[in-house]
C-alpha cells in the first residue's frame, strides 16, 4: 500500500518494459526504497539507523562468508585457523576485524534504532507488527552474535558457550537433558562448535528474511515521523529517492568514519584478551563477561542471588534476563497514550531518559565483576528496568497531559498548513 499521490513506476527503456511485464523487480524496488515511496518530510537523523542496520547486516554477511572460506569448525584446529586468517590469509586480518567490530557496530546502530522507537512511540498502532518483527530480529541477532563469538574457540568463547548454554539447564525437569542435547555432550566440545558454526551461517539469512517482513509491514502504514502525527496530504511527504537516499547516504558516511576508526585504530578495544588464549576446559578465566552489547542483560541475570519464594535463584535470573526482552513484545499494549512522540509527552520524556541512564548503569554493572557494590546496583537497576515497562509506562500514559500536537507534518515544518483551513470542508 502507498499513498495515492505516490509516483508511479514508468520504465522508458524497452528492456525495462519487457522486464516489468515478466518480473516486476525494478518496480518493487522503486516502490520500496525509490521515488515511489512517499516518506514524511520531517524525518530527523534518528531515522537513519534502520538503513544503517541494513548496511551492517550486509557487511556481516559479506565478511562472514569470506571468513567461512578460511575457517575450520573443529575444536582441534578452530583457534589455529583463526590465527591463520589473522597472519597468513591475504587481508584476513581486515576481514576478521571488520566482522568482529561489525558486530559491535551492528548492535550500536540497532540499540539507537530501538531507543528511537521508545522515544517516538514507533511501536504504537498501526505499527505494532513492525515493532514485533523488530524484536524478533533483535533476538535472532543476539543468538547469532553469541554463536559467532564461540567460533574462535578461545577461553572466552569456550566459557561463554558453557555459561550461556548453562542457562537452559535452569529449566525445571528437562533442563539438564536439554542442556546436553543443545551441546551434543556434557560440556562444550567439537559437536557444539560444529553446530554453532552451522547455525551462525544460517541465522543471518533468517534475519534478512525477517527484515524483508519488517520493511513490508512498514510500507503498509508508511514511516512514522518525529511529530507522531500521521501523513494527511501530499505536502506532508517527499519521495524516498532522492531525498532520503541522500540523507541516509550522508549518515552512512558519518557512520563509516566511526566504524573505520574503530576497525583500523582500535580493532581489539571491544574484545577480551582472554580470547587469544586457546580454550581450556580445566580453567575458567578469573573474570568472564560477554561482549559489551550483552552487558545490560547479563547484569539482570546476575542480579538474582537468593531464591525467590519457591523459584531457585538460577531459574529466576534466567527468566528475568529473557523477560527483559520479551517485555518489549507487550509494549504496544502497555503504553496506552494516543500521542506517539515523546516530543509532546513532557512526563514520558523524563522517564525515557531515566530508562537510558538505567540501561547504561545495567551495562556498566554487567561488565564488572560479580561483587559488591555492582550486584546491589544491578538489583536496583533491574527492578527499575521492569518497573519502567510494567508500571511507569502504563501509569504515565494514563495520567499525562500531552502538549498540543501540530495539525499536520506540514504545519510542524512550515509553521502553517494551507490544508488546515480547508480540511474540515475538504475531508467530507
Amino acid at each position: 500500500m502507498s499513498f495515492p499521490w505516490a509516483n508511479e513506476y514508468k520504465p522508458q527503456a524497452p528492456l525495462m518494459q519487457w522486464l516489468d511485464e515478466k518480473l516486476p523487480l525494478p518496480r518493487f524496488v522503486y516502490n520500496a526504497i525509490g521515488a515511489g515511496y512517499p516518506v514524511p518530510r520531517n524525518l530527523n537523523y534518528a531515522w537513519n539507523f534502520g538503513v544503517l542496520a541494513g548496511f551492517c547486516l550486509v557487511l556481516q554477511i559479506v565478511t562472514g562468508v569470506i571468513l567461512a572460506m578460511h575457517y575450520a569448525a573443529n575444536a582441534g584446529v578452530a583457534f589455529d585457523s583463526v590465527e591463520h586468517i589473522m597472519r597468513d590469509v591475504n587481508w584476513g586480518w581486515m576481514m576478521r576485524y571488520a566482522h568482529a567490530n561489525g558486530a559491535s557496530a551492528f548492535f550500536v546502530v540497532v540499540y539507537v534504532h530501538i531507543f528511537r522507537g521508545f522515544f517516538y512511540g514507533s511501536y504504537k498502532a498501526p505499527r505494532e507488527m513492525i515493532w514485533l518483527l523488530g524484536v524478533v530480529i533483535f533476538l535472532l541477532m543476539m543468538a547469532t552474535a553469541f554463536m559467532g563469538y564461540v567460533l574462535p574457540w578461545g577461553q572466552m568463547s569456550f566459557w561463554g558457550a558453557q555459561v550461556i548454554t548453562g542457562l537452559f539447564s535452569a529449566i525445571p525437569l528437562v533442563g539438564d537433558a536439554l542442556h546436553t542435547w543443545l551441546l551434543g555432550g556434557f560440556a562444550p566440545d567439537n559437536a557444539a562448535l560444529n553446530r554453532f558454526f552451522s547455525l551462525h551461517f544460517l541465522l543471518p539469512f533468517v534475519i534478512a528474511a525477517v527484515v524483508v517482513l519488517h520493511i513490508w509491514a512498514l510500507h503498509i502504514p508508511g514511516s512514522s515521523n518525529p511529530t507522531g502525527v500521521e501523513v494527511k496530504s501530499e505536502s506532508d511527504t517527499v519521495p524516498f529517492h532522492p531525498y532520503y537516499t541522500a540523507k541516509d547516504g550522508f549518515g552512512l558516511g558519518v557512520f563509516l568514519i566511526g566504524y573505520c576508526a574503530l576497525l583500523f585504530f582500535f580493532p581489539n578495544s571491544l574484545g577480551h584478551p582472554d580470547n587469544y588464549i586457546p580454550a581450556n576446559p580445566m580453567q575458567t578465566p578469573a573474570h568472564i563477561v560477554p561482549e559489551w552489547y550483552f552487558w545490560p542483560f547479563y547484569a539482570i541475570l546476575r542480579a538474582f542471588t537468593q531464591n525467590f519464594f519457591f523459584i531457585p535463584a538460577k531459574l529466576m535470573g534466567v527468566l528475568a534476563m529473557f523477560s527483559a526482552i520479551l517485555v518489549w513484545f507487550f509494549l504496544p499494549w502497555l503504553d496506552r497514550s494516543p500521542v506517539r512522540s515523546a516530543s509532546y509527552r513532557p512526563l514520558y520524556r523524563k522517564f525515557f531518559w531515566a530508562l537510558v541512564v538505567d540501561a547504561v548503569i545495567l551495562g556498566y554493572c554487567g561488565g564488572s565483576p560479580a561483587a559488591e557494590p555492582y550486584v546491589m546496583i544491578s538489583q536496583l537497576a533491574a527492578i527499575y528496568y521492569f518497573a519502567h515497562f510494567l508500571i511507569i509506562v502504563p501509569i504515565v500514559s494514563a495520567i499525562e497531559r500531552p502538549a498540543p500536537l501540530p495539525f499536520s507534518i506540514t504545519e510542524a515544518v512550515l509553521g502553517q498548513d494551507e490544508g488546515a483551513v480547508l480540511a474540515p470542508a475538504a475531508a467530507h
Partner: protein
Amino acid sequence: MSDHAGTEAVLPEGGEGVRRRDFINIAAVSAAGVGGVVTLLPLISQMAPSADVLAESSTELDVSAIASGQAIKAVFRKQPVFVRNLTPKEIAEAEAVDVSTLRDPQTLKERTKPGKENWLITMGVCTHLGCVPLGAGEGEVKGEFGGYFCPCHGSVYDTAARIRKGPAPKNLQVPEYAFTSDTVVKIG
C-alpha cells in the same frame, strides 16, 4: 457461475452424511502428518551426544600423593573433577553445619564413602552455569566457607562442596565412583 453450480452438486446437503472422500481425505492427511512427525525424530535426535562422546570411559586415579588439605583437578568426561583430601578441621566444620539450613541439604557422610570421609570427590563444575570453581588448585581462593568459590557469578561452597551462598541451586555434583583399593579411585 455454471462452474460453481457444478461444484455444489457434489457437496453433501446441509453438511450431513459422511462421504467416502472425507474418509480418504482424513486418512491421507493423518498418515502424512504422523509420517512427517516421525521424520522429525532423527532430525532432533542427531543433536544428542553421539556414541563416541557417550563412550568416554571411566577414569582411574591414584590418590596416594594427595596430602591432607590438598586437592587435585582430574578429568572425567572432558570435565574437571575435584579430588580433595579434607583435613580433620575441614571435616569438623562440614559436620558442624545444621543441614536443615542448607539450600541443598546433604551431610558430608552422604557425599563421601564410608570410612573415607576425608576424600571429597566432586565435579569441578559450578551448578549455576558451569564454570570451574576456584579452591582446588594451590593458592586459589577458597571462599568464605573454606571450600570452593566460583568467580563467574559468586557462588560459594563449603568444605563438603555444598552450596552456601550465591546463585547456584545445588551442591557440587558427586560423580559415581568407588575405591578399587586404598589409594585408587575409579570414577564413572
